[in-house]
């Protein structure tokens, strides 16, 4: 099973690498990160700050675009081209197929994220001759967030079209980043509304947990317990999404 899973993972990774969209997205992200040098030069001495904020935000935006546009098409393409029959006719379970697709895209996101992160570190180091530790944590958290949203997009893509799946995943991203607002609203609402909003708060992924980007300019390195909680949250929520996704995928009829 492990061999099969690894094979599907690698195959998915290779498949995404063949996608020209990936190259243009990574290329554009690298360009934006490099361009942050120019923005920094007209910021009244706030170069480091501008480079850090622009680069980390560019990383997040482009990794999310990869998730939305490539992640949502993975399963759909297999069904459309009917290659899924070929795979599932072999001794490959649906769970392994689904998990392999997820891990394959995670690998793609990791490679794309690392390319962007390396460019970010080079640009920042070239300008300031130092890179705060918090920057590495923030970049890592961006990749974690993209991985979690990959699980979301894969879940949606297992029962809906790629476009709808991308829109739903974008919606989850919006709610996930507005979780603090949802919580504040719930505290001011009537008991019924409060219950609903608190339900939304706990049910939807709290993506602000992965937001270490705002701390980088002040070099606020997260504590070990904070990192531990982020990892625990990521692992448990992603596993929940994968179990849910597999359950839906199992019932799909092609």
């Amino acid at each position: 099973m492990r061999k099969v899973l690894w094979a599907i993972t690698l195959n998915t990774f290779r498949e995404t690498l063949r996608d020209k969209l990936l190259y243009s997205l990574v290329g554009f992200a690298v360009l934006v990160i490099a361009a942050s040098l120019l923005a920094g030069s007209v910021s009244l001495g706030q170069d480091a700050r501008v480079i850090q904020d622009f680069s980390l935000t560019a990383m997040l935006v482009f990794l999310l675009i990869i998730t939305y546009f490539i992640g949502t098409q993975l399963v759909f393409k297999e069904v459309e081209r009917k290659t899924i029959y070929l795979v599932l006719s072999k001794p490959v379970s649906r769970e392994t197929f689904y998990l392999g697709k997820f891990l394959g895209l995670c690998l793609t996101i990791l490679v794309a994220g690392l390319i962007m992160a390396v460019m970010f570190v080079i640009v920042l180091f070239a300008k300031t001759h130092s890179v705060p530790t918090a920057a590495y944590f923030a970049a890592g958290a961006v990749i974690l967030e993209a991985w979690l949203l990959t699980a979301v997009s894969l879940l949606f893509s297992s029962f809906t079209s790629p476009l709808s799946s991308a829109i739903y995943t974008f919606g989850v991203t919006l709610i996930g980043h507005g979780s603090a607002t949802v919580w504040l609203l719930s505290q001011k609402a009537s008991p019924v509304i409060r219950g609903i909003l608190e339900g939304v708060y706990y049910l939807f992924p709290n993506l602000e947990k992965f937001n270490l980007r705002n701390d980088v300019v002040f070099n606020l390195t997260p504590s070990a317990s904070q990192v531990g909680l982020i990892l625990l949250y990521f692992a448990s929520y992603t596993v929940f999404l994968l179990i849910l996704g597999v359950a839906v995928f199992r019932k799909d009829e092609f």
Partner: protein
Amino acid sequence: MVFLGLSFVAQINYDSWRRYSPPKLLGVDYNVYIEPQPLSPSLAKAVSFGSTEFLADYYWLTLIQYYGGGTPYGKYRKLAELFSLVTDLSPKFQQAYQTGLIILPGEGFPDQAITLGEKGKKNLPDSWEMPYYTGLVHHIYKKDYVSAAKEFQIAATKKDAPPITQYFAGIYYKEADQRQLAYQIFKTVHDTTKDDFVRERSGKQMVHLEMTFFLEDAVAKYHQRFGRYPSILQELVFKQIIKEVPISPLGINFVIDPQNGKVSESRK
């Protein structure tokens, strides 16, 4: 190639139209001027995807371009709003507060500058710069020396505050006619500072104020004896109440107000 050439011609014509034609919109040449339209802080936070520092940087760059580009309205109408938005999005952006406190008052927004300073003091409680710069706004643009002195006193309590900060607090209290308070501040500075220049200046200020108190005592005695105030300080010498009018170590002459006997510094 034909279409490329055509696009080149169109571009040239468009550019010359933008540069040389006089289209006006509400009296403003819209070809060279677009005023920033900042979002409300809550909306900006909602659309930032959590990247509030990034959005703060975006508005910071917008603000710099806006201020550097000049304004046909004669006043930077959006300047205070932009500073407020940047510091709402990034509450610990020290450079934004400092820049705002320096340029806002000069552009006709002293009250907004003070509000910005108050926000800075709240969000950056360890910064001596926030009360220091706010104090300067009170002094220069509001002529409110008591508030300026209070701000400088707060600044002086912060770590890394320059030794002269407390000295300035004394100066402002003196300007606000709160001489006893000013004297106590100068004395504290004189007794505690490690900066030679500040100690020397505080010592001179103390002697200057002691001379003022001495002269006011003499004026009170004069009033008791003659039922009126002297018209010039030399009268105190003529009537043998004091031996001579002291000379201030600050090189400032003392003068008296014959109406109320108040001794002050000559502004000449």
